[in-house]
């Protein structure tokens, strides 16, 4: 190979593969790093190239000496995972047959992929689905599975990046509301409303619990109105939800249901 290059002016095209290489090496900072992350999420070619570089650079890590972490590291990992699993616990079905769980998890994973719902909501959706009365979903023929596919609404909250993930599983007559990232301000509650596709009156789905995944049973009057095209609005209310005889508070977010 020739000697060191000394001419910064000579043009090296800084195309996407080059940016992917710089990122994989860890050279990107600030705005450029954010832009690269955004591109990774939306541009499969760029994502492919970033992973290509990661794969090629990976063997270099064999040159790094290993080291033994403290025992508390694993304890911390277990505790964090247990805490996340516990959030899903209230509706978990402890004696669920293991084979059903595995089969259903694959479906939940697909719903997640389609809807982008949080993994926690998916875990709860799984547990709820198993409550579906009187039949085993695993044995159901494909057509029936399609008919009972869950409906999902994502309700972005302004420009905050926060959102509600609402999952409704027709057979269960239950609905999951995941308000992850939403925090209580101590002064307001947020109330969720169903806006039926047929233009009939709004129906309250109750107050949203910030930072939690909650399941709620839905009365028949509500489930009858839940279909494709039904939408949801979130309003800001006093603590406890909209008082009787008062107009609902301002709408802070809205979204629509889609079957997945």
């Amino acid at each position: 190979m020739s000697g060191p290059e000394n001419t910064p002016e000579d043009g090296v095209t800084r195309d996407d593969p080059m940016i992917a290489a710089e990122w994989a090496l860890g050279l990107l900072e600030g705005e450029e790093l954010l832009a690269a992350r955004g591109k990774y999420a939306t541009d499969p070619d760029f994502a492919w190239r970033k992973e290509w570089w990661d794969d090629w650079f990976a063997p270099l890590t064999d040159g790094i000496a290993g080291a033994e972490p403290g025992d508390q590291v694993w304890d911390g990992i277990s505790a964090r995972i247990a805490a996340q699993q516990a959030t899903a616990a209230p509706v978990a079905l402890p004696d669920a047959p293991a084979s059903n769980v595995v089969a259903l998890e694959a479906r939940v994973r697909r719903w997640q992929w389609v809807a982008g719902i949080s993994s926690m909501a998916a875990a709860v959706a799984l547990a709820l689905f198993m409550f579906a009365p009187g039949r085993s979903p695993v044995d159901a023929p494909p057509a029936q599975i399609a008919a009972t596919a869950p409906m999902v609404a994502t309700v972005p909250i302004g420009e905050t990046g926060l959102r509600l993930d609402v999952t409704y599983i027709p057979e269960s007559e239950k609905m999951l509301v995941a308000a992850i990232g939403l925090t209580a301000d101590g002064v307001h509650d947020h109330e969720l409303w169903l806006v039926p596709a047929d233009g009939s009156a709004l129906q309250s789905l109750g107050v949203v619990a910030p930072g939690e995944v909650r399941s709620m049973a839905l009365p028949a009057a509500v489930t009858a109105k839940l279909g494709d095209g039904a939408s949801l609005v979130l309003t800001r209310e006093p603590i406890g939800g909209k008082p009787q005889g008062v107009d609902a508070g301002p709408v802070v977010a809205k979204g629509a249901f889609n079957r997945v």
Partner: protein
Amino acid sequence: MAARPRPSSDEAREALRDAMARLADGDAAALEEIYRATRVKLFGICLRILGDRKEAEDALQDVYVNLWQRADRYDPTRASPIAWLAAFARNRAIDRLRTGKVRGGAVPVEEAAPLADETPLADMLLVDAEQAAQIHKCLGALDDRTQGHIRAAFFDGKTYAQLAEAADVPLGTMKSWIRRGLQRLRTCLEASEAA
């Protein structure tokens, strides 16, 4: 460079691949197996990049919790599990360095890796030997200076600005050197894939 194939390494790699598949299927118990098999290597990486034991342990926790949440991101047809995990851990550690959670940044290897000579090689899963040989060959084909800067970026998490300062050259010069090096590296690696 120590990419020595050993009789047990294929088995270890297969066991890890299997555990990763089970984790992706939702088997949380698989995570402990993965942790036991990979913690020494991944902690070594975090420690080298972050240069602080406490920071590296926090980063390591994030790595495995994140892995549990997103195990389905690993594509077994694409990379060996340990290669993927190594990149995953290094990326998390670099993220931590870049988001300003860490003040000091990487420190010289003598301080960063106190277990350097005590860690038995057999405890560490190594990345595919053939692939390792190729990247070393392509890196080795670069001039020493460029190679040194690319290595410093990879192993110590240095930025362009830090590298330029250490070499006492303008930022643009450093960027140009490294980009030309990366371009040659890509050409060399792609040629090896086509072969």
